[in-house]
């Protein structure tokens, strides 16, 4: 494939186009609606990006390798509660407890999935339910409030006007993922695992180890997102609902990840997450109601997932062929 053709592949084009479109909309639409963008708009968008970016990495990296991890929702809830429980005196200790605890659970889950060659979706649905239960047990069935005010203030203080430590941590981890994905063999290996597990194994990818590592990272990232979010809101909720997963999947798909695995890149995940975060802030600037926002994101997800469907192209080719036949043009 020539260099120019290579850059026309979906995994390169989609994230750039999606991000650019959303950015243009973000800059123009508020003006049309009689609202004005200010420094706070960018700050808020990046605040929204802070947890979203982490969860997008947590969902997107396994997706590239052909694994779907629903348990990130549970890890996020558990991470939030662990951080609040353990971080009363030291915020750092709370984050460490959340990341280590969930990372360990993620490792166990990953080893089981890899060793026993389990389908990740039903297993992670089970662990998601179990994690919600565990979160409830640890929190004694009550929403926890976080008393460590200095940690709450620290994570959300403005840095360089537009950013906060919370969003900068997410940017930093995205950068690490991009470097690891692009500059080492990790990227091609994950894609090989996602497109053809057996071929990847034959080509020498240590599939089991990669799967275990992926679920560990995914759990740790989700826990970090949950921990920082609960610091920011000074409380830990027991059930985040499905919304974080929905937004993260939308971000991953806009970032060029194929839901059947084998396609995508870490920088695409970053752009996808930024696009969704900007959209969310845009909707809040033009004061779109919650339900309308939901409808828009729902439609977007339906459209994107349908366009990504494996049999759509076959169906379209078949239809085009039929059309050409009736047109009287001879087929080769």
């Amino acid at each position, binding site marked *: 494939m020539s260099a120019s053709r290579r850059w026309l592949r979906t995994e390169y084009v989609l994230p750039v186009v999606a991000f650019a479109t959303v950015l243009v909309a973000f800059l123009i639409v508020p003006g049309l609606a009689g609202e004005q963008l200010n420094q706070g708009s960018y700050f808020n968008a990046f605040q929204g990006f802070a947890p979203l970016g982490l969860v997008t990495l947590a969902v997107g990296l396994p997706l590239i390798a052909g694994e779907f991890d629903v348990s990130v929702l549970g890890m996020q809830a558990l991470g939030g509660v662990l951080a609040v429980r353990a971080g009363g005196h030291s915020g750092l200790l709370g984050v460490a407890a959340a990341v280590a605890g969930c990372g360990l659970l993620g490792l166990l889950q990953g080893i089981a999935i890899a060793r026993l060659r389990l389908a990740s979706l039903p297993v992670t*649905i089970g662990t998601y339910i179990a994690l919600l239960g565990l979160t*409830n047990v640890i929190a004694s069935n009550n929403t926890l409030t976080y008393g460590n005010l200095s940690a709450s203030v620290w994570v959300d203080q403005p840095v360089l006007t537009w950013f906060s430590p919370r969003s900068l941590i997410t940017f930093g981890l995205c950068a690490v993922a991009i470097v690891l994905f692009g500059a080492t063999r990790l990227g091609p290996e994950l894609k090989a695992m996602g497109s053809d597990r057996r071929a990847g194994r034959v080509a020498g990818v240590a599939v089991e180890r990669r799967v275990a590592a992926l679920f560990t990272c995914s759990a740790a990232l989700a826990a970090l997102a949950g921990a920082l979010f609960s610091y920011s809101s000074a409380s830990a909720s027991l059930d985040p609902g*499905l919304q974080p*997963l929905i937004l993260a999947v939308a971000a991953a798909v806009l970032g060029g990840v194929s839901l059947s695995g084998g396609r995508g890149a870490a920088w695409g995940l970053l752009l996808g997450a930024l696009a969704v975060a900007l959209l969310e802030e845009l909707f809040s600037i033009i004061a779109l109601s919650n339900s309308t926002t*939901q409808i828009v994101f729902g439609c977007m*997800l339906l459209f994107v997932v349908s366009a990504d469907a494996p049999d759509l192209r076959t*169906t379209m080719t078949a239809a085009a062929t039929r059309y050409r036949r009736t047109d009287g043009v001879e087929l080769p």
Partner: protein
Amino acid sequence: MSAIPIRRPPALDRVGAGRKILAVLGLATGVAIVIFAVLTRRFLTWDNIKAIFSSASLVGIMALGLTFITLVGSLVSLAVAPVAVVCAMAFLSALGLGLVPALAIAMALGAVINAGQGALIGAWNVNAVILTIGAGFLIDGFAQTVHGGKIILPAGGGYATLNSTPLGVPVAVYVMVGLAIAFQLVLKRTVLGRQILLVGSNRRAARAAGLPIGRITTAAFALAGASIGLGGAFLGAFNTGASTYLEGTLTFDAIAAVLVGGTAITGGRGSILRTLGGALAIAAISDVLLLRGLATGAQILFKGVLVVAVVVLTQVRLSGRDT
């Protein structure tokens, strides 16, 4: 000609050994749970068994239909709760027309909403999990727009019939058992049921055999939608009102019942009666934990662990059969 010795790769041997250990562990745990349950005071009383059946009924009715989606190879629907709530709203609003028309409207609405999703999934092989997440989000947003945050109240009194308890057993339990038998007959005795199993076990073979995969998947989703609509009607009747707050953990409870029943997530293997068993098992275990004085958190935790355990056992058993 001398036979070439076939050596199983060590990785497969590991899976084989793990399989045996898991089977023993699974059996031991199952026996332990049964002993634990029987030794729990008041577990084996008629009132308690009735309580288990009635607490299983609502989720059970929806899970029975959801099994078709899993069997046809479309994994699960993550839009169970939003569809149920919308159907509950439609049921309560239509009660002015009488109970039977309202029930029919709820079931038809559920069937239509789900058939739409099934059509896309069947025709283009769209990722079912993500599509149903998106659809659920959309339906939820739509429901919120329609009811504007208010609770929809019954437009007639017919809902009381659904809450009645003939011979001391709630109507929902009769419906659950009746539906399980009807759906099991559909699955095992009709052409559609056979087709659903074939599409689920081997989509490519089903296509090669000339089966209309799109239509079969749509039908499976429609059956699921009708049962979710019926469950939604009971949901609305129990709560004498409907709003999106009713969604709770309905979706995952229904999925848990299907998975605990042992229906294979990959499709093609399983049955409706297994799901009935799954729903009852979850209800029984929650009941034991409740009798032992454990709080909600522990019950959810145990349910999740049970799902993981059964999923692991089912999959390891199936993959063992294939190698």
